[in-house]
C-alpha cells in the first residue's frame, strides 16, 4: 500500500482535530492515495458505529419486558433438577457408607472360618493338635496317653 506524507494530516482532519481543514480538503481532491485512505477510514467508522448501536426498549415494550423478568424470577425451580441432585447425593453417600463399612468389617463373612491361633496343654504326656472339620468347625484336639482312655 502506497503512502502519502499527508496521511497523518488527513487522519487528524478525519477525527475533527485538524486546524488546516481547507488545505486537507484541497489535497484530498488531488491525491488518490489519501482519498483511498479516507474511504477506508469511513468504512471502519461505519462498522464501529453499527456495533455500538444498542437496542432501546421503548415505552410500549416496557410492561412486557418487566413481566418477562418477573416471570423468570418467580418461576419455581424445576422439580426434576432437584430430584436428580438428591439422587446423586444419595448415591454418593451410599457408596461412601458401603465402602467404609466394607473396610471396617472386612467384607462378607460367608467364607470366614474360626482360626485357632495357639494351643497347648499342661497334662503330662498329652499332645494337642488342631484341625478344621468338613463343615468348617475349628477343633482343638487333646490326645491323651493310651492308658488314660482305658
Amino acid at each position, binding site marked *: 500500500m502506497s503512502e502519502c506524507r499527508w496521511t497523518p494530516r488527513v487522519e487528524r482532519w478525519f477525527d475533527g482535530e485538524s486546524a488546516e481543514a481547507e488545505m486537507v480538503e484541497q489535497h484530498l481532491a488531488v491525491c488518490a492515495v489519501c482519498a483511498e485512505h479516507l474511504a477506508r477510514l469511513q468504512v471502519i467508522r461505519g462498522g464501529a458505529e453499527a456495533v455500538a448501536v444498542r437496542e432501546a426498549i421503548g415505552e410500549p415494550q416496557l410492561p412486557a419486558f418487566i413481566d418477562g423478568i418477573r416471570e423468570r424470577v418467580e418461576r419455581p425451580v424445576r422439580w426434576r433438577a432437584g430430584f436428580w441432585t438428591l439422587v446423586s447425593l444419595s448415591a454418593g453417600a451410599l457408596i461412601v457408607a458401603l465402602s467404609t*463399612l466394607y473396610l471396617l468389617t*472386612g467384607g462378607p463373612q460367608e467364607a*470366614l472360618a474360626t482360626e485357632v491361633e495357639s494351643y497347648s496343654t499342661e497334662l503330662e504326656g498329652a499332645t494337642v493338635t488342631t484341625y478344621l472339620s468338613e463343615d468348617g*468347625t475349628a477343633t482343638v484336639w487333646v490326645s*491323651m496317653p493310651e492308658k488314660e482312655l482305658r
Partner: protein
Amino acid sequence: MNLAALTMTFLALVAVPQGEQGKPVAVRIVAVQAYNSGQKTKQFGRGLEEIRAALKDIKFDTYRLVKAATVNVPYNKEARVPINAKYSLYIIPLSKESRGRIKLKVRVAMAPEGRQKKPVNAVMTTVVAVPGKQFKLRGLPLDRGELIVVLSVAVHNGPVA
C-alpha cells in the same frame, strides 16, 4: 437438610461397629460326653440338636449332654463355667478383630487329683472366632469316653449358634 440427614445416617452406620467393642461377648457353651455303647447308629441325648453338625467327625456312637450355658463376658474379663466336678471352662474375650470376629482365650482346667495341689490346664487355646460359627475342644478323658466342648460367640444380641 437432606444433606444433613444423609451425613447423620452415614455417621450412624459407621459408628455401629465401633460401638460394639464395649459390649460383652455372648458365649454359648455345650459340653458333651462322647463314648461307645455298642450302638449301630449315633445316639444323641436331649439338648444336643444345636451341635449335632459339629460332632459329625467324631467316631463315638453315643453322646450325652453334660452342661449347656450361655454367658455374657466383657472384654478382658475372665468367666468361669463349671462343666462337672472334674473340669471347668474359662473364657476371656480379648479383642474384636476384622470382619466382626472375636479373639478369645479359652482354657479347660482340671481339678487337682491325688497329690496335685493346683488345677491343671488340660487345654489352653486362643481362637479368632466367627460369630455364629461353632468351634470345639475335644479329647479330654471323661469316664469311659471323652469330653467335647462346643462353643460359639456373638456380640450382644447377635447370633449364638
